[in-house]
């Protein structure tokens, strides 16, 4: 089986498991129908758009779907556990903490892959500048993701929510600033 087909099988499995947990959440707790719908439908819709509108090798996109499915699965699983009474209040906090840690690790995972993505970028920007931006973005996302994961692991939930968000937002702001700088300098206009 080719890498691309294997990634497809994994992604389909991940999306189906998420959908099953979303349906279970909606059945167990109808007042959380909106959460179940958003959690269960967002990923397949985004993935469908990627499959339809992009060409070439889709292995990377499918791997991203698998990782994103795992993140949504943890979040929906915690909600389902709380709704079904399997998780108490303290365990619910632990679940929130796990989602935060996992979210940080997912950000680091995607950051790690950014420098490998060579093709899709502004063609007006020269190759050296493009490479420098991708390396910068990769390192920033990895460090911000690991920082956020550590924050969620070590601090109480209330503090972690504030500091984890600030770290991630700071990382994203740094990358966006570099992207704007890179785009303006690289523009031929």
């Amino acid at each position, binding site marked *: 089986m080719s890498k691309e087909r294997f990634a497809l099988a994994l992604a389909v499995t991940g999306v189906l498991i998420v959908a099953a947990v979303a349906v279970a959440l909606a059945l167990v707790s109808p007042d959380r129908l909106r959460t179940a719908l958003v959690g269960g439908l967002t990923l397949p819709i985004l993935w469908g758009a990627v499959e339809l509108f992009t060409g070439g090798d889709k292995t990377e996109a499918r791997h991203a779907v698998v990782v994103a499915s795992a993140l949504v699965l943890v979040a929906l699983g915690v909600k389902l556990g709380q709704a079904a009474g399997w998780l108490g209040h303290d365990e619910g906090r632990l679940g929130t903490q796990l989602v935060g840690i996992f979210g940080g690790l997912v950000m680091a995972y995607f950051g*790690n892959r*950014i*420098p*490998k993505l*060579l093709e899709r970028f502004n063609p007006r920007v020269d*190759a*050296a500048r493009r*490479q420098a931006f991708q390396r910068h973005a990769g*390192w920033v996302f*990895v460090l911000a993701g690991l920082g956020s994961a550590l924050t969620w692991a070590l601090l109480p939930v209330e503090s972690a929510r504030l500091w984890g968000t600030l770290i991630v937002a700071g990382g994203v702001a740094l990358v966006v600033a570099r992207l704007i700088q890179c785009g303006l300098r690289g523009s031929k206009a």
Partner: protein
Amino acid sequence: MSGVFRALADPTRRQVLALLKERPLSAGELADRFDVSKPTMSAHFNVLREAGLIDATRQGKAIIYRLRMSVLEEALMGLAQTVGLDLKSAPATLPKEEGS
């Protein structure tokens, strides 16, 4: 992953990667920086390409090599440099290989 470790184990290949961190370079530009034979350089490029650390595209008659290292791979290279060859203190060109 073993291909990545194999590729990073060699100081010449690490030096190629360090040069490509600055900007994409042609095979000729890279070969000029090293005092080794072209077949040897070509073999180094192949190892790096098979490990997925660089990407080669043909532009006219030239082959342009670009860095394609993940953050983890770059960190591993930094570790390899620290425990192995210190590139900053190494000469710009390596001594000529004998018998290659």
